[in-house]
């Protein structure tokens, strides 16, 4: 690395990351290209994550780093290995918005394994991933109706079937509550998929059991499951947002006017860009126990209901 001018011995072999840039089409050097790309991706994420200035970060720098990440994402998408990477890409908090400083504690535990999803890229094929990457991309928690879903929800990998069934049914319940057209589409897709799999009688029983069913499912949601499920829960409200949403969401001052007691639909529709952490803070008055940003999963189920009411605007 470059330092303060200290001399170092002449190195015969240049660092694999430096030196002549390799084109992705070169056969044997494709590995080093991939390695270089990986490293640059990680560095870029670290720059966006770890920057906690007292002053506003440079917009130019943020835009250039974001462009870098986007380019790499595009490449990876084309190479078919987008999804695990997308997990990492969804996580960084917006350095520009008000959410950044509050959201940071919630995401700080996520900062430690930014390499985790990339490990999957290099070592594990998609199907054997324990991390429910497919869930993360297909999560349709109620958020802004303007955000488009990338595609229809996919059938889950067989290994996760038992968990996913109750989880997906919980999602169904929540989606039904949401007026968002995208989630309506997803609900249609889900119920269609569900219907094709399940017995007709089961699906009929499913619906009347609506709320209590969703509660038990939600308690599962809140339990710390292995792997990256915690990531699912904490970023649940943000999974529909891309990296860009988070980075460049306009500062929404309506948040400062938001009063949880008056859950008008106007406020609900503007709640979309709010991070999980912000919601926790608004819930603080309702909770008997203090809710700390680092322990978002110890919430009461009643508080979850409050969140849902607020989001739905009912």
């Amino acid at each position, binding site marked *: 690395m470059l330092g303060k*001018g200290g001399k170092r011995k002449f190195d015969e072999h240049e660092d694999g990351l*430096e030196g002549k840039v390799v084109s992705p089409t070169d056969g044997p050097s494709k590995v080093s290209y991939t390695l270089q790309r990986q490293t640059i991706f990680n560095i870029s994420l670290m720059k966006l994550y770890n920057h906690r200035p007292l002053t506003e970060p440079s917009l130019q720098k943020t835009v250039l780093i974001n462009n870098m990440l986007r380019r790499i994402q595009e490449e990876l998408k084309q190479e078919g290995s987008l999804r695990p990477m997308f997990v990492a890409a969804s996580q960084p908090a917006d350095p520009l918005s008000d959410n950044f400083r509050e959201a940071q504690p919630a995401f700080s535990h996520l900062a430690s394994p930014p390499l985790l999803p990339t490990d999957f890229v290099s070592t594990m094929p998609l199907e054997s991933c324990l991390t429910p990457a497919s869930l993360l991309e297909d999560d349709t928690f109620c958020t802004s109706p303007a955000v488009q879903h990338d595609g229809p929800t996919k059938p889950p990998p067989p290994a996760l079937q038992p968990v996913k069934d109750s989880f997906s049914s919980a999602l169904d319940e929540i989606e039904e509550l949401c007026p968002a057209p995208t989630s309506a589409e997803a609900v249609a897709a889900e119920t269609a998929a569900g219907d094709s799999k399940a017995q007709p009688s089961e699906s009929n029983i499913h619906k009347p059991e609506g709320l209590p069913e969703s509660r038990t499912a939600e308690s599962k949601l809140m339990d710390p499951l292995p792997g990256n499920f915690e990531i699912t829960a904490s970023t649940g409200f943000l999974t529909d947002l891309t990296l860009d949403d988070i*980075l460049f969401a306009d500062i929404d001052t309506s948040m400062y006017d938001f009063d949880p007691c008056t859950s008008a639909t106007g406020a609900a529709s503007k709640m979309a860009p709010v991070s999980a952490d912000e919601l926790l803070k608004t819930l603080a008055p309702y909770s008997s126990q203090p809710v700390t940003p680092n322990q978002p999963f110890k919430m009461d189920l009643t508080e979850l209901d409050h969140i849902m009411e607020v989001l739905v605007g009912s």
Partner: protein
Amino acid sequence: FLGAGGGNDIQWCFSQVKGAVDDDVAEADIISTVEFNHSGELLATGDKGGRVVIFQQEQENKTQSHSRGEYNVYSTFQSHEPEFDYLKSLEIEEKINKIRWLPQKNAAQFLLSTNDKTIKLWKISERDKRPEGYNLKEEDGRYRDPTTVTTLRVPVFRPMDLMVEASPRRIFANAHTYHINSISINSDYETYLSADDLRINLWHLEITDRSFNIVDIKPANMEELTEVITAAEFHPNSCSTFVYSSSKGTIRLCDMRASALCDRHSKLFEEPEDPSNRSFFSEIISSISDVKFSHSGRYMMTRDYLSVKIWDLNMENRPVETYQVHEYLRSKLCSLYENDCIFDKFECCWNGSDRQVEFFSLCTSDIPSIVMTGSYNNFFRMFDRNTKRDITLEASRENNKPRTVLKPRKVCASGKRKKDEISVDSLDFNKKILHTAWHPKENIIAVATTNNLYIFQDKMN
């Protein structure tokens, strides 16, 4: 006399150095901008602590023919204070991003200084006399007991020690959501522009409560933002023309007569990418950090991370000249990205212009045309556009002897390092020269290291 091109290369000698000696740099002392005024008599610096320091050149001593006047401190004042944006819970830095001088109209001097959000017009005036002999006041200002006043007299001005006062005459605030990177005074000397990351505003020097937005590249959906404005400047002669550069390496020339909002450029200057140099960092290193018109207004110069480019305003598809500042860094871009050096914003400047030489020259190559820019390790580079020769010099206290010609430096990119060469790995990337300025008429240059200001002159025979 600047010397006709070709025969006489300038020989640069150390003249002065200003600033603290110790290696421990106080953050507030970091120099953030350097600018000569229109006559060259005054040299202003701004620093990270929000202060402006103005140096004045001594009147030339007729007996001392071997050197030009020295620059000494003329005025120091606090231009900007740190502020707090309560809405975003973020500090607004007091760092002075740019200083621009107004041409002198009367005894006082005026300059514009700006931080990230607010531009201020400062009046610097001298006071060397004061009235004495008031009827109702004592000399120290206390009011006299009226019953003791028995005579009348007229107060008279008597000389006093020179006092230089700086007072803020206008404050242009609340017009920029994003960080101001440039200010440029129009050739009409009545208006000026200020540019931030996404917008450019036009001001009248007399009016502070209104400014007109002339460029707005903010997308309706901020998610689609991929490009920002990095610098802007008015044309030196045409008061309706200005240019602005972007983080994607493009320069747009706009004519304010075309429409109120100059979102559609009149000209777009962009060089197609060289496919053999393509890398992950192509976009970042193409980001333009500075743009400067030549004195004639026929050319403009841009600085990106590795090079300086000269553009002919009549040719949009490529620059007419490209000079490599530190090409040896191309193989180090990944490390420079990691340590953020790749985002350093180097400025560039043209040599001064001697109108007489230009007027009487029969061909343009007789007119000296040199551009200067900074690099790392306290190196700075000059490119002579006529001779195509370039030189690397170093700003360091070790070259302290006045009238001793500076020794050229050389960086060894790879392979065997010759004696007196410096290898790329030995360069100190914390010692960067971002700001340089050239006297408008003479061969005097001001070069800012992190916290010191060096003044070099050419060797007078």
